[in-house]
């Protein structure tokens, strides 16, 4: 899907300071060298299988299917991965690549803390130094993950600039990278930023759709009718979609965080409310005002609270290959509680956005149809926030 300049249609590119250009060129060259190297792939597969616990299960949600009375629902259980989310797939790939490149230090941004925890984990495993930038607002929302990162030996730097959330953490990580490049790899957590990151992260996350395809063929002998995943930057979604892009009969549905609704100012639904712009190294859709100032976005989910979307998603939207739908806080919280009660699975509040949309479309579909929902992470980290949303204060 990527052309040589890292473009997906009009989107993508490398809109970054000159200071970083040789770093991304070096990264691209290293990646192109290692991505087809048998030794690298053997090591990565071993990390995936022995350390992260892959392949993740494709679980038939029978009770949910019966309750909704429509399409058969399968859950891709990325929540069962080591560290509790899909983020580990990308991080193990990038950390291994960085190590091969001779880097000794990983820096990362994090929103909900899942990517930060995954990066801290990989750094601990591979004996690398780790610094994680996290919006101060998010360090409060996700205090448990801050502790986990520190426990794993990472330094967590609260970012106080701007809205003190994910976008500011990305900006600060980029600033840090421009000041220290030679020993440092920026382990970007989603399919965003300058080329080659959207391609590298997508390739490492594509293991999700590769497994779904094999597993559904084994269980059902056919492809699903729809694959549903949540989209912030969009890494679990592109991972879930990638091997199905060629299968025109499979609907690809990305669920954006609508916050308090796409008609309100408190939303993070980029494709639904944004315009094409240039930010954080890429051309894509962004929530912004008429003068191109990036808008403060809002979602109950710290992981989807980002004003942009990965350039490949922007392209899939432009060509009509994937649909991007808004899901509100309220719908996501209902789905969070529903999945817990119905299947005994507590999803991340991010993933609950995908569950919520599947709950809307499943009853309208036939019983002979199949939906795969990617449960991108587990919801332990969200319990306190959801309790608060429901008016109950709990202490961890």
């Amino acid at each position, binding site marked *: 899907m990527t052309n040589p300049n890292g473009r997906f249609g009009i989107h993508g590119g*490398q809109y970054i300071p000159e*200071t970083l*250009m040789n770093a991304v060129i070096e990264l691209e060259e290293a990646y192109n060298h290692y991505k087809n190297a048998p030794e690298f792939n053997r090591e990565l597969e071993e990390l995936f299988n022995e350390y992260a616990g892959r392949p993740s299960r494709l679980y038939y949600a029978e009770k949910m299917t019966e309750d909704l009375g429509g399409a058969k629902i399968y859950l891709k259980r990325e929540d069962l991965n080591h560290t509790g989310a899909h983020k580990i797939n990308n991080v193990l790939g990038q950390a291994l690549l960085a190590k091969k490149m001779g880097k000794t230090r990983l820096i990362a941004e994090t929103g909900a803390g899942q990517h930060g925890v995954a990066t801290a984990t990989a750094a601990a495993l591979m004996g690398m130094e780790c610094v994680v930038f996290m919006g101060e607002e998010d360090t409060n929302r996700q205090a448990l993950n801050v502790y986990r990162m520190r426990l794993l030996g990472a330094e967590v730097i609260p970012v106080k600039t701007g809205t003190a959330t994910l976008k*500011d953490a990305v900006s600060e990580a980029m600033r840090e990278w421009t000041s*220290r490049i030679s020993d440092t790899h920026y382990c970007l957590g989603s399919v965003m930023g300058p080329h080659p990151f959207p391609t590298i992260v997508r390739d490492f996350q594509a293991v999700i759709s590769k497994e779904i395809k094999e597993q559904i063929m084994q269980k059902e002998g056919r492809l699903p009718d729809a694959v549903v995943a949540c989209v912030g930057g969009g890494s679990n979604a592109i991972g879930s979609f990638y091997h199905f892009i060629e299968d025109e009969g499979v609907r690809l549905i990305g669920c954006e965080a609508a916050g308090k609704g796409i008609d309100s100012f408190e939303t993070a639904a980029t494709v639904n409310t944004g315009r094409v712009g240039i*930010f954080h190294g890429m051309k894509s859709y962004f929530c912004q005002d008429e003068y191109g100032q990036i808008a403060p976005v809002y979602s109950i989910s710290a992981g989807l609270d980002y004003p942009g979307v990965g350039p490949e998603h922007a392209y899939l939207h432009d060509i009509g290959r994937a649909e991007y739908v808004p899901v509100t806080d309220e719908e996501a919280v209902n789905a969070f509680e529903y999945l817990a009660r119905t299947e005994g699975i507590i999803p991340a509040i991010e993933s609950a956005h995908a569950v919520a949309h599947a709950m809307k479309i499943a009853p309208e579909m036939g019983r002979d149809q199949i939906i795969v929902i990617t449960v991108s992470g587990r919801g332990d980290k969200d319990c306190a926030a959801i309790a608060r949303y429901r008016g109950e204060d709990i202490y961890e």
Partner: protein
Amino acid sequence: MSNIGKAFENGKAFIPFITCGDPDLETTAAVVRAAAANGADLIELGIPFSDPTAEGPVIQGANLRALNGGVTTDKIFDLVRDLRRDVEVPMVFMTYANVVFSYGSERFISTCREIGIDGLILPDVPYEEKEEFLPICRRYGVDLISLIAPTSEDRIAMIAREAEGFLYIVSSLGVTGVRSEIKTDLGAIVETVRQNTDIPCAIGFGISTPEQAAKMAGISDGAIVGSAIVRLIGEHGKDAPEYVGEYVKRMKEALG
């Protein structure tokens, strides 16, 4: 071809950077006039951006103050129209790609031409992406300024050969901000630049004292100072024009 060449005809060039609208546009206008009157050869006007990823804390703060004060691209265009009634020194805008792109690149750059802006510095547009804006800049005679960084190495010749207006040499790794010491081997960078282009080059990032400015201008054709001036404006607010004027005078004198 813009007027930028004129900035380098009066000895070594002193190039101050000012964030428009910090603390308000009236003060910006007075600061620009004070800088011009005291020997600034070229003035960089910053159009604030919500998320300035190449800036350190000082200029980030100025961006935020200006935006909170309600400054917009259109109001800054009006400011320049007013300044151009009496200010003759070359002026360039320094902002981020999205500010230009979202306004409509053609509409933005044609307005630059109309109001007398000579060039455009976009720190998040490297050589590989300049086609996004360069054809339009050429059409309207606005120079798209190229940057060279300490990490550019084998890219210096390529960038210098196609550069227009002047070359902005970034002195150090990292973001904008005052530094006590500049360690990059800038002499070697400038030498490579000279081998590949005749256009002037100026050094910026981290310069605050007259001694640093003299040293940097000694290696190149001029010195660019941002954070030190923005900090003065932050400290003195509406009274800043006087202080900035004195500072510019001292710096220009140091360049000899």
